[in-house]
């Protein structure tokens, strides 16, 4: 495809993305994965009434905690959040609150949406369960590694993914990888002049050369002028997940906990 046409088609995708997402996540009901706007709005009211006095309007009133950007002392999953709110933290200034289920979901939603009433509040599950799913029926380790442990190197190592991605971006990747694949990670297919087909994941590219990890796990650098064919695919090798909404939330919880070597 002509590079300009290719780029134009990408533009088209980007502009229509908000519409494309639900359709792309075929078979998945987004309501199972996210809190509703009504939840977020309810949470905003609860927050102002019960939380803002100590945590502040921006969520950063308590040392070491920033609720708006998701920095906690101990909390990882949404259930952790609920537990802290309903039971408090003994020996600290965090009291317990007697909230109804709707109010409790609301406060979690408001925090997960980054205090943004029009934001997206992604459900975040239990990291330990998420790790188990990641390593078994999620079939993630076939391609991904975590800090060097796992399967092939064809997909990026996820050891620091909790630092570089938001929950919403992770969810999009799991539900509909084609709407979340970073351009640099696009799969490459090249055919050399002597007929060898090279497939892999792009690491770097310039006008004349491309660097990649090939399907055998080796580093390759190709000179474009020496290739018979060269294609960059917009379709990720990763397929949309078949996991349940709760399982996806758990996997997201696990991925968010991956923050590099301690």
């Amino acid at each position, binding site marked *: 495809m002509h590079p*300009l046409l290719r*780029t134009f088609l*990408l*533009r088209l995708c980007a502009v229509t*993305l908000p519409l494309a997402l639900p359709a792309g996540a075929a078979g998945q009901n987004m309501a199972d994965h996210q809190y509703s706007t009504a939840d977020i709005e309810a949470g905003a009211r609860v927050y102002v009434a019960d939380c803002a006095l100590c945590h502040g309007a921006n969520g950063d009133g308590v040392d070491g905690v920033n609720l708006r950007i998701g920095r906690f002392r101990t909390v990882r999953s949404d259930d952790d959040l609920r537990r802290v709110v309903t039971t408090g933290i003994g020996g600290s200034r965090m009291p317990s609150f007697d909230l109804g289920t709707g109010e409790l979901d609301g406060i979690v939603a408001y925090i997960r949406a980054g205090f943004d009433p029009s934001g997206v509040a992604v459900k975040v599950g239990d990291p330990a369960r998420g790790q188990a799913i990641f390593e078994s029926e999620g079939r993630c380790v076939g391609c991904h590694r975590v800090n060097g442990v796992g399967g092939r190197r064809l997909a990026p190592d996820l050891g620091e993914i909790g630092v570089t991605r938001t929950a919403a971006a992770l969810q999009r990747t799991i539900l509909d990888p084609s709407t979340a694949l970073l351009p*640099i990670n*696009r799969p490459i297919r090249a055919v050399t002049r002597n007929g060898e087909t090279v497939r892999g994941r792009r690491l770097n*590219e*310039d*006008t004349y050369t491309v660097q990649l990890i090939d399907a055998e796990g080796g580093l390759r650098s190709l000179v474009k002028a020496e290739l018979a064919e060269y294609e960059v695919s917009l379709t990720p090798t990763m397929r949309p997940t078949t996991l349940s909404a709760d399982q996806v939330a758990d996997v997201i919880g696990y991925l968010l906990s991956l923050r590099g070597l301690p």
Partner: protein
Amino acid sequence: MKTLRAVLLVGVFALGSDHLAAQVTYERILGAATEPENWLTYNGGYSSQRYSALDEITPGNVDDLELEWMLPNQVFGAWQSNPIVIDGIMYITQRPNDVMAVDAATGRVFWLYRHTNAENARVCCGANNRGVAIHGDRVFMGTLDAHLIALDAITGRALWKVEVGDVNRAYSITMAPLVIKDRVIVGVGGGEYGIRGFVAAYDVETGAEVWRFYTIPGPGEPGHDSWEGDDWEHGGAPVWVTGSYDPELNLTYWGVGNPGPDWNAAQRPGDNLYSDAVVALNADTGELVWHFQFTPNDGYDYDSVQVPVLADIDWNGARRRVMMWANRNGYFYVLDRATGEFLSGSPFVRVNWSSGLDANGRPIPTPQPAGMPTYPGNQGGTNWYPPSFSPRTGLFYFSAWEDYATTYRPEESEYIPGRAFLGGGFDVLTPVPGAPTVGIGRTSQINNWTDAVGHGSLIAMDPRTSQPRWKFEQFDVSDSGMLTTASDLLFTGGREGYLHALDARTGEELWKASLGGQIVMAPVTYEVNGRQYIAVISGNSLVTFGLPE
């Protein structure tokens, strides 16, 4: 030992004589094209064509080019400086405001002058300096804290220093000055800080200000009614790229930058003259003779700080004195440089902020709905990267950014002196949310934004038709300027760190060198002792090539 003593004796005699080195008169600058062994001004001469009559390096032997010398910069950051070369001596600046005198044949340094800027000096986009001007035996540099300094070209000692703008109000100078007659002319940066821009001329001997032209008219002046209330007092319109000069018309031409606040046009109703315009000034008085505004009431940061490129070309069967201009707003223009008359204009990249130009060259605005991308994006279809015009090919060469778009978020901004005055923000359009985007210059050897957010295109434009004759595409975007020579070679670079030599007629690539660091200036050429050199800055190194001896 005998030989050495003999040399020393000769040296003593030389010191005692009236040896005049590096005397660059106004007449020499006027005739810059006739001494192509030198590179006398930022743009190579008053017409700013960046075309050299040197022809030792040809399409037939360019493949033999070899490294002559390298001079590493000790300061990190984009190195946008452009050397000038006079009689074998190169003058080059490095961040933030150092000047070096260098042996152009060996790369060894005679002296280094270091200016320490005021701690509150503010620039939006890096501690850049693009070079010096020369006159007589003096070298002139503008500073980030908005001073103009004259140095002794032989000793590197400062001779005078004057304040051009108030650093407390975030005035700065990043451009190379231009000497015309016995004045040194310089403009000010600060378009992101609510300055009131100007161009000013200073006496080369004393530093006394001779004239000053404000790029925003004051009360009672023509054009003042293109602003409302006190918007004109902090409306930006900086001048941060070196202008041009037509000695026959005695007009000096300067491109003017964006109005402020940058992205909220609704906050400053009116055309906002002379932001995003070219102004033609009487070189002796600084009086405005004509202006042409490319982007009235700009909300996209489409600075018109491109280099005004002057040439006499055939136009509908007659010789015409024109100015060629590929603008950041995505249109390529040809103007009559005597009158400012609009001759032609057409887009060279995808443009959707405007549906076209009317008969007078005024754009027909088509602002995009909130949240929708605007083409070209914030860095523009092109920018300050110096173009080249080859009188041999009749083509105008420049770096364009293709398929690059931005979504704008205009907001009300309060003007506070010396503080950023931006009027909101912007996001570069990416194929998926949160993907890496292209920025101002490279910060990594890994291109993880890819061509999906924009890519470079060297356009060889035929000014008579406004149609590209050919294009040379790059995977990454390019901020590199252009150099053409009498042997029909075109030298350019890019962020990927390749130095390319192309056939200026066909665009065929004849030679390249992988230097690794981003090239964010224009290569220059000069000659010492009969040998032609090509000098370019890649990353943190000034690199010079020549043919084998």
